[in-house]
Every structure is written in C-alpha cells, then in structure tokens.
C-alpha cells in the first residue's frame, strides 16, 4: 500500500527533513536534530506537522449518544469549545485507540463533534462509528475528514506569545483543553489549547489546501516525530501502538495508567468489563523507570526482577534529552510498580539496573 503523504511533504523535504513511515503516512521524523528540536520545545517554541492524525466528524440528533457510547469519557460534560481525552474500548474494555474529542459549534441546531484517532486508525474508527450507529438505529452523520485537514501542533513555553502574534484574534485567554475557531493569514482554523509534549501550546486543524500558508506563518523551529516521541515520553504520555496495541499488547485504560479517561457513570462499550477490572484491580501496570546503568531501553526489551526472572516488557524508551538519562515505560506486575522499586532491563543480553519512577519524568504544564 502506498504511503499517505501530508500536504507539506514537498516543503518539508526542501527544508531538509528526514522522513519515516508512521501509521501508513510518510512523515518528517527530524528536521535538524532531535536534540535541537526537543530543546526548542522545552525552552522556547517549536511546530510539528501532525497531519497523519485522523479527523472524524460526527453530527446529528443522536451525535452525543453515539459519541458517548463509543468513548470512555463523559461527552455530556463538553460545552461547545471544550475537548477531552478519551479512550475507545472494545466489549472487554481493551483499548482500541485513544483520542481527543472536540465539541464543535452546533451544526443545524445539532450537537457536533470531531474526534482525532491515531494515524492509520481513522478508517477503522469511521467504520466502527457507522456500524454501531446502524446497530443502535441512531440518527447521526459520521464523516471521515482525515484528508480534509492538516494538523499542526505549536508547542513550548513561548507558544502563546508566538500564537498571539500570528493569530488574528486574541488567543492567550484560551484555557487548557478549550478550543475555538481562529483566523491565521485569513484562513479559518479550529484551534485547541492541547498538545502531546508536556508544554503549553496549541493544535491547529487547517484546511488541507491552506496548509502551507498557515505552516509558513509560524517562524519557529520545525520539529519531527522523533522529538515528538522524546517529548511525550518525558511527559509520561502513552503512545498507541507502542504502549498499548489492541492486537499485540491488549491493555485496559487502568493498566495503561489512563483510568482517568474512564467514566463508569456513563454507558459505553466496554464499561461493564471495566467496572469489573476496577473492582478486582489490575495485575499489571504501566510504570515509568530510569536506567541507573549505562544503556538505552527500547520497545520490546525484557524487564526482570533483581533475581533475573522476566516480569515485564519495555513499551517505550529513549535517552531523555532534557534529563540526559535513559528513561522508559513498561508493564510490570503491580508488586513491582511502586516508585523506587529496583528492576533490571535486559539490553542485548545484559541486565541493566533500573528504578521505577513516577511520571511525568519532568515538570509539565
């Protein structure tokens, strides 16, 4: 299958970006260096092209019911211009995807939502929404608009200052997880105070055709998926496909440390299973850890206890550019999940001492 390309593939190429396949998309992984891009976001401001993220638009008389029954969070708390982090779970409460749900301005007097599945999941989520809508006989229109929107993330302590210069309207009053429509170079963009780096910042949904105009309006460090990964990992944010995977590493939100997205007082697919999990407690949990010995933890490496018995697996790992220390996430039995617990990560056959740490690894907004 040919890779999908973001609207600015050519522009990024001219800028000297290196590319990588991610979720079926050919995305910039690095513009200058991951370290420089990472530092720009931690200390100043950087911009990411995250056009590989999906966009599913849901509207109609039963839009709220449909969204509510297919996501774990409580959509009824969303006013127009609010957004929330949520998981999409199956009947067993296993995470299929994680997403941000936006309540858009009402269309034709009906509640309207846009949710952002991970790269490559948009078609499956679109189908899932249609199937359940039909099964439940709900009245809602579900559109996959992934190819209609580019998505950019402006992140860093100076993001608000730069956005204020570039956006026509006042923007700094936008609260965390609030969203509204703004104008950039005459282009209307849906803008949320969200991100995936642990820093302050904004995410812009931009009409595909106008992507270059909006991207070029921000004079700051362009950043690739490499820095996005090191930034999110320092912030302790999970990555779909790495820290959970419906097929290869099925996990509930409670195991993945995102139980706060589960509102058991709502009705949704997976709710009953998750209620049982919550009552019984999880056997394994995602923990953060830091290597004390030299080495770099990587996805798939074994975690052992101090006696050398394999007790878990690394799901994400890197050399933290901010901390200059090797950090990672991995699943371990709850008896090993307490911060301060000493474990071993097996790097090329060699056990490396690791210590469980609370996440985020750094101070975040």
């Amino acid at each position, binding site marked *: 299958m040919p890779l999908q390309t973001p609207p600015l593939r050519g522009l990024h190429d001219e800028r*000297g970006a290196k590319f990588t396949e991610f979720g079926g998309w050919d995305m910039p992984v*690095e513009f200058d260096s*991951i370290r420089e891009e990472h530092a720009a976001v931690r200390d100043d401001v950087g911009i990411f092209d995250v056009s590989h993220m999906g966009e599913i638009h849901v509207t109609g008389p039963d839009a709220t019911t449909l969204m509510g029954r297919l996501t774990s969070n409580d959509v009824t708390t969303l006013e127009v211009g609010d957004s929330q982090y949520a998981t999409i779970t199956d009947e067993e409460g296993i995470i299929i995807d994680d997403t941000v749900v936006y309540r858009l301005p009402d269309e034709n007097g009906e509640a309207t939502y846009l949710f952002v599945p991970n790269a490559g999941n948009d078609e499956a989520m679109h189908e899932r929404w249609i199937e359940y809508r039909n099964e439940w006989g709900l009245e809602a229109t579900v559109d996959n608009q992934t190819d209609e929107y580019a998505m950019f993330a402006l992140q860093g302590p100076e993001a608000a200052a730069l956005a204020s210069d570039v956006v026509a309207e006042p923007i700094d009053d936008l609260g965390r997880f609030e969203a509204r429509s703004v104008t950039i170079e005459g282009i209307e963009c849906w803008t949320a105070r969200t991100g995936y780096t642990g820093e302050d910042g904004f995410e812009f949904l931009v009409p595909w055709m106008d992507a270059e105009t909006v991207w070029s309006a921000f004079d700051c460090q362009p950043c690739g998926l*490499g820095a996005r990964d090191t930034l999110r990992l320092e912030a302790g944010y999970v990555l779909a496909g790495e820290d959970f995977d419906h097929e290869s590493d099925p996990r509930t939100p409670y195991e993945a440390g995102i139980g706060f997205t589960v509102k058991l007082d709502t009705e949704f697919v997976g709710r009953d299973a998750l209620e049982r999990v919550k009552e019984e407690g999880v056997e394994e949990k995602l923990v953060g850890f830091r290597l004390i010995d*030299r080495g*770099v933890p*990587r996805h798939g490496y074994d975690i052992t206890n101090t006696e050398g018995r394999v007790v878990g697996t690394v799901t994400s790992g890197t050399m933290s550019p901010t901390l200059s220390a*090797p950090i990672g996430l991995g699943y371990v039995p709850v008896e090993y999940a307490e911060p301060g617990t000493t474990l071993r990560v097996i790097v*090329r056959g060699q056990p490396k001492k690791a210590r469980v740490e609370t996440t985020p690894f750094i101070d975040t907004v």
Partner: protein
Amino acid sequence: MSFDIPADRRYLESHEWAHALESDGDGVVRIGISDFAQDELGDVVFVELPEEGESITAGEQFGVIESIKAVSDLYAPVSGEVVAVNETLFDSPELVNDDPFGEGWMLEVETDDDLESADLELLSADEYDEQIA
C-alpha cells in the same frame, strides 16, 4: 547534502573509518564512523566499545552505537588489539556527531594489517564517496 570524507584514511562499506597514526609509525590505527553515518543516525546518545587489551577482528562487530532513533552495530576495519578507547564518548557521545573524524574517534588498535591491502576490502575516500552518493 554533502559530507566530509577525509582522504587520509580508508573506509568500510558499513561506514567505519580507519586512520593510520603516522606519527607513531608503529601500526596503530584509529577507528571511528563517518560523517555520513553520524548524519544518518542522528543524535548519538550511547556507544558500547571493547576495553583496552581486547581484540577485534576485521569485518566483525566490535561495538554498538545508539542514536535516539536507532541502534546500529559497529564493524572493525582491521584486526588487532585495542590499545586505547575514547572514554570521553561515554559521557559525551554527541562528539560523534560534532566531530566524527576527530574528537569522535572510538578506538585505537595495534594491528599488523595494511590498510591498503585488498584482503581488508577497505575503500578509498573516492570509492566511499561513490558508495554513499
């Protein structure tokens, strides 16, 4: 993108370089990776190297280099005994990015091998340039 390829040393297809330390004239060869290789890897964060006194064998793996995004094996351009290890890299692996042919060197090896020998299959700077073009 153009890369530095000093003509005073020879290269493996796998992007390591070998440089005879002429001033010594006693068969000591310094080893590192090329500018092209460090650029492909991106930010180097970790190197695993043999210790002084260990032996390495031409064409075989002698260590590992890791960047933020990749793990890569290091191959020996010559055979011999390790007489010096650039331990500065353990704390400052970014020197491999900053100065791959200078301060980012990895090992010095005492060897009887002749860098020009056909057996080693080492490339001249021009040949290496063609390979990465």
